[in-house]
């Protein structure tokens, strides 16, 4: 589903060259719950940004569903993000002036293949799934961190994306809320066969992943199947 070949990202800071990604090659299969782990500065978030079309690689190739995304125009990238990808950010990244329902509906409202009725129905249904239906008219600032992250997940899922990217979604949450959010990811992966690529530096998160890619200094240092992933009770 995703083929990454010799991906490099080099930042130049004056005369200093920082190799954030240094020749990453990786394949991700449909339905996988992949965890990218590693210490700070290992290049895991940079890799996620490249896959999520949020940043451009210096060199290398990313093919998603047989499409070379480096050939996309700016507009095509936007549409690809809207129709094919979902993104969950570390700091929730909700629009503060929109209610929970409006935040969740926003990506669906822009889809040309959805009617207004369908958008409402889908948003309502996903809010029910994450258990925040009763909070749909609240503003993000009126919710707890865990609730906001669940809304962020609902927004990412409302368009039923092919791939869901999550950039340290539990970094701002306590353990209890982290577990709630991770369980939701797991449930979505299992029930909807949703491909998920999640970046994390918390070692205990690995129990949720099917496959774990470990990075250091912009390179993949290990790539292996998690033999005993946690299953939904």
């Amino acid at each position, binding site marked *: 589903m995703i083929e990454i070949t010799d991906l490099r990202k080099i930042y130049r800071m004056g005369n200093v060259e920082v190799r954030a990604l240094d020749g990453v090659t990786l394949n991700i299969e449909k339905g996988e719950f992949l965890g990218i782990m590693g210490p700070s500065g290992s290049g895991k978030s940079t890799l996620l*940004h490249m896959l*999520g079309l*949020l*940043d451009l690689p210096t060199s290398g190739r990313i093919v998603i569903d047989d499409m070379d995304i480096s050939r996309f125009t*700016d*507009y095509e990238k*936007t*549409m690809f*993000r*809207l*129709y094919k*990808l979902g*993104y969950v*950010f570390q700091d929730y*990244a909700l*629009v*503060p*002036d*929109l209610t929970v329902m*409006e935040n969740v509906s*926003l*990506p669906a*409202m*822009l*889809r*040309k293949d959805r009617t207004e009725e369908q958008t409402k129905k889908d948003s309502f249904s996903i809010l029910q799934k994450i258990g925040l239906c009763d909070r749909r008219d609240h*503003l993000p600032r009126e919710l707890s961190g865990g609730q906001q992250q669940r809304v962020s997940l609902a*927004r*990412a899922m409302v*368009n039923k994306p092919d791939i869901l990217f999550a950039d340290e979604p539990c970094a701002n949450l306590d353990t209890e809320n982290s577990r709630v959010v991770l369980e939701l990811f797991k449930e979505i992966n299992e029930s909807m066969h949703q491909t998920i690529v999640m970046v994390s530096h918390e070692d205990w998160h690995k129990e949720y992943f099917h496959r774990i890619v470990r990075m250091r200094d912009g390179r993949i240092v290990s790539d292996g199947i998690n033999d005993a992933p946690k299953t939904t009770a």
Partner: protein
Amino acid sequence: MGQKELKVAFLLALRSLQRGSRSSTLLTILIIGMCFTNMIFLPSMFSGIGQSITQQLIDYEVSNVLVSPKSGEQYITDLDSTLDLINGMPGVQRASPQYSKGATFKYRQRVLGISVRAISPADEKEVSPVYTRMVAGSYLGEGDTGEIIIGKPIAGDPTVRQEDEFQASLGGVRVGDSVTVEYGNGYTRDYRVKGIYLTGWSPVDNAAFVTWTDMEQVEGKTLDQANYITVRAKPGYSEQFIKNELLAYGVGVTGNVQTMTDLLSKSVGKVLQSFAIINAVSLVVSVIITTVVLFIVITIKTLNSRKQIGILKAIGVDKEVIMHNYGFQVIILGILGIILGIFITLVLAAYMSVHPIVTPEWSAYLYVTPMDLVINSVILFCAAAVAGYVPAYQVSREEIQTAMRA
């Protein structure tokens, strides 16, 4: 850019204004409202002064068409037949001649040089509204002799001492008093003051009127000449039409025929031209100020929202939607600001129509036409749109990562 995208952009704009900082929204609307008022106030004031001068010229000096002596001559001669000719023309309501003579007025210890104008009261009433501006006594009657009407500034105020007077007067003449008038030809006569008027038009307020019959006694002959003839057009007839008629009937042989517009362009034309230049400069400055202020407001707004803009782009919101979001915000703010500006302007116009700025030469009020409001609204709206869209365009094109790191 489809309907869905515009709808989302509008929703984002509306919610940002509804749920964003209320004080900043209200302040922006107030700034736009004040800019609108600033744009329209000075030009409307000058228009008001121009209108006031024009109307006073029509009412008290020229009427619609003025017939004056040919160059090098002092009087229009053959007056009776000229008046008969003019009054018989289609479109002419009435022609009224005036004959002026310098005189010295004496009242108690005061002496004052004044121009006395001879009129035919019935004709004059049809071309000039001086008879409606009587502040004491009454206007001249057709058969009056030995009676005079004078302007209030000439009559003066008995409570003001001579050395404190703004302009020399007779020191408090009242209706019924007798004033001695000594004409330039040596003829002296006592007149009973029949009325005192105040028009607000200085040249008329500093003159006195007697009947044509009285002036004939002063000159000691039948007056078949006049300094000028003012001609009032019937409603629906243009000045130019009357002028063309007069010229066609040969009035141009005995006198110069000029419309009020001709005279206006010569006399106050330069003043009005200067007003137009000041108006244009004022408009340009106001538009620049408005554009810059809105540009700063929207730039700050977009800079504060850079992270959010990055997030919106990351979740698949097109940059056009983001740009139109800010565009709609400024359009909404612009419309509300313009409505506020129109309200302030109308309140000021209503106030100044009751309390105009009065000077000896003119009274100034705000002359605002619906077209002025529409034109200024459109200009301000366009300025607001440009001021809003430029920073929105810039920020919407920023790289996602750069914006999100902001």
